[in-house]
């Protein structure tokens, strides 16, 4: 157990380059409970102008609840939010926005049929105009964003849409920007760009809060960090001099597991072969992929989001038909953990136990030719819920009631428990906290060691480097590089992913 006392020394001066202003935002003693369970218990958050503040915590630590209180979406049971020394009561996000508090939510709430400028002025009291356009361009330029105000939002990448959201808040005059897991959907390069923009904003005196459970980001980008665990603040401290391992320990408490050591795999015969696989069009396409996955190995797939990884995973799983080329597998059981869990792998209107039975309901012992055997389905579900720590005590509830991490566990439990010969996992740990992520990685390695061929698509390069026996890099719907374990590192992968250095190689 890490003693909180050591780290709870609240310092008066923020580190980093920001101006040391008085407290811009001071949330004091925020308590919020749902059905008698505390999501936030006596939480303090101190935020100064000019600083980047990280809010660190596991899934369910209460980060999103805190943000929802700050932006007026929830009303705290007790506690107060002060802005510039004045206690304010927000009854809606609109009030918060007027007081200068703006939130970039995880799910970007934009109208995709509208243009950038239309989305910016939406909800303000005036329509799109030349001045508004100029202002938007100006804000964007100041941050190093290249956003065409007239572009249709539907045509933007996730990163660009996030930029739009930031511009929108600045346009409305927000002085306090709160970003809920902004990097969850970004490639490393995009994250760097985002953080440099945030740094510029902090330099202008804005106060920035971002939520993360990636320690690397916190140590690289934040000035100060507040760590939440089980709804309580367990540490608040400057980032400078903080040890990532220590922060991790604070975040997860005693639950921390020793880091997973991954032994090299023992590749055997091929289990999946793709030859000149082509499908789709435009950005969502495969333009000729040759790939062989052998039993007993983990093949990592790296790439900037939108370069065909989703399509590769779906094609490998046999879910997407190839327009040209050839796919063959020698697997009796294929497991597929899709990137978008609820949209692809689950049925939200069915119960958790039913969702856990999707791979087995049509054979014994879950059913006879005439009847489903509910008790067997229930028993199987309870077994998986326990083994994979699915956070529920009512498996009869609709699966859609689970949190993101819960959905993830349901899919992983169902897929991995089938003892697959071929396991395809897209972003298997996205949105999971440190402990759960480690658990999932261990499951993937265990599946490999039992002889499965694994294809793991991830935007977390550390994860890929950690797990993969080989890493292939995708760019423009093709595999542009293949690196063995040991030859790959972050820098090389980064270059290959962005195509930098390819020109020299080709020349």
């Amino acid at each position, binding site marked *: 157990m890490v003693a909180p006392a050591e780290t709870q020394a609240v310092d008066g001066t923020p580190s980093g380059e920001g101006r040391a202003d008085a407290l811009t935002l001071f949330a004091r003693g925020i308590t919020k409970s749902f059905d008698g369970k505390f999501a936030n218990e006596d939480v303090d958050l101190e935020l100064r102008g000019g600083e980047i503040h990280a809010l660190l915590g596991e899934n369910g630590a209460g980060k999103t609840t805190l943000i929802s209180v700050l932006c007026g979406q929830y*009303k*705290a*049971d*007790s*506690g*107060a939010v002060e*802005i510039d020394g*004045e*206690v*304010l*009561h*927000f009854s809606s996000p609109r*009030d918060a926005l*007027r*007081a*200068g508090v703006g939130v970039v939510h995880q799910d970007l709430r934009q109208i995709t049929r509208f243009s950038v400028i239309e989305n910016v002025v939406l909800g303000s009291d005036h329509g799109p105009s030349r001045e508004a356009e100029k202002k938007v361009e100006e804000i964007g330029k100041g941050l190093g964003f290249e956003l065409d105000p007239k572009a249709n939002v539907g045509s933007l990448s996730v990163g660009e849409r996030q930029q739009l959201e930031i511009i929108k808040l600045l346009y409305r*005059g927000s002085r306090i920007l709160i970003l809920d897991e902004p990097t969850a959907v970004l490639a490393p390069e995009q994250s760097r760009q985002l953080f440099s923009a945030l740094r510029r904003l902090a330099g202008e005196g804005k106060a920035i809060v971002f939520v993360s459970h990636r320690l690397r980001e916190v140590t690289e980008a934040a000035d100060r960090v507040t760590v939440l665990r089980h709804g309580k603040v367990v540490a608040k401290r400057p980032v400078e001099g903080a040890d990532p391992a220590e922060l991790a320990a604070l975040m997860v408490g005693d639950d921390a597991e020793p880091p997973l050591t991954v032994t090299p795999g023992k590749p055997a015969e091929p289990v999946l072969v793709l030859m000149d696989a082509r499908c789709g069009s435009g950005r969502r396409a495969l333009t000729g992929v040759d790939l062989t996955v052998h039993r007993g190995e983990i093949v990592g797939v790296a790439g900037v989001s939108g370069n065909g990884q989703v399509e590769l995973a779906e094609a490998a*799983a*046999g*879910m997407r038909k190839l327009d040209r080329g050839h796919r063959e597998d020698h697997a009796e059981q294929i497991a*597929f953990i*899709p990137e978008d869990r609820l*949209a*692809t*792998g*689950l*049925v*939200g*209107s*069915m119960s958790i136990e*039913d969702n856990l039975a*999707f*791979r087995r*309901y*049509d054979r014994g012992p879950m*059913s006879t*030719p*005439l*009847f*489903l055997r509910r008790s067997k389905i229930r028993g199987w579900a309870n077994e998986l819920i326990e083994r994979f720590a699915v956070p529920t005590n*009512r498996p009869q*509830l609709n699966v859609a*009631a689970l949190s993101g991490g819960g959905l993830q566990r349901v899919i992983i439990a169902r897929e991995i428990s089938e003892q697959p010969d071929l396991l395809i996992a897209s972003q298997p740990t996205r949105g999971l906290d440190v402990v759960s992520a480690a658990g999932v990685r261990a499951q993937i390695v265990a599946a490999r060691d039992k002889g499965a061929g694994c294809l793991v698509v991830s935007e977390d390069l550390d994860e890929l480097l950690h797990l993969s026996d080989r890493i292939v890099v995708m760019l423009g719907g093709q595999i542009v590089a293949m690196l063995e374990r040991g030859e790959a590192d972050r820098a090389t992968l980064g270059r290959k992913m962005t195509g930098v250095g390819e020109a020299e190689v080709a020349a």
Partner: protein
Amino acid sequence: MKGWRLEKRTAPSLGSRVAQPILAVIAGFVFGAIVLAIGGHDIGDAYKAMWEASFGTGPGFEQVLVRATPLLLCGLAVTVALRMNIWNIGAEGQMAMGAIGATFVAYHTTSLGTLPILVAIFLGGMVAAGLWALIAAIPRALVGLNEIIVTLFLNYIALLFLSALINGPWKDHASIGQAYGRRLPTQAALPLIGDTKVTIGIFIALAAAIAIYWLLDHSRAGFSLQIAGGNVRAAKYLGLGIGRRILFVLFVSGAVAGIAGVIQLTASGGGRLQEGLTGGYGYIGILVAFLARTKVQAVVVVALLYAALLTGGTALQSTGIPSSIAEIIQASIIIFVLIGQALGSYKLVRTAPAKSPPAHPAALGEAS
């Protein structure tokens, strides 16, 4: 309303699920009472007449069962398709096609005995109605053509086809005035239960309910339908074919509606095709399925209650109350039930005031 707000219920308790429709029905009758009072009618007499015409007396209850039979079948038909998120608006036309198919078979099996001919005409009606529903299912499965529009318009075609038959090739030339089809062989009449006016059709409908309940809630096929209906991408992910499931549910749906058509033909229809044979039950069946929230057990209950409401409403008219008022009472009960269903998924919660220093509401307006 300050200090109170609606919060979504995660899982309504059993008590609230039972209490809510009962309260809704009571509210509907209270509203109906107001309408009756405005119209200057005696509320007590009116409701007594409704009660006696439905559950209150033996003959009344027989009438309820007679009407409940096609309602139950049509409600089941819509429910089957809805389990896969397919809206079958065409039960009315499928009933007509069921009756037509049965008539066709009956005309060609006149030498058979009662049981064989009944089995033959029921099968004929189910196949005809099922195939009729496939006309909507095939384009839906192949190119995603909206089944709501197609099934709806197929109703008109089916009803006009029925009309064409009884005015043309199947016309009974002995009848004068209204057009009728030629009479079916006498052994094709559905037997009555004891000395009541109720045919064994109600048992056929209940058997269909049990079969559908098994199919949807206890069979492998039903489980896969629920997956495919709940999330098409998940079905693809699991390798479940969507197209053939659409064909399957609409065939079954049409066939079940077809049974209702055959029962109307051989029971109350007087053993021959005629206009108005479908009686709008195909459309009310949609409402029954909706009110029952596609739960098979609930479809049985709702069909029975709705049938009571229909017979009660008819009785009301015979006491001299205008039919419009009877319909207002029917409609208001349905509306209150729907309101109850919508509100039932929320609960009223008192918002506790935050324990904190006094607010500065004015400050919010100025800050920008």
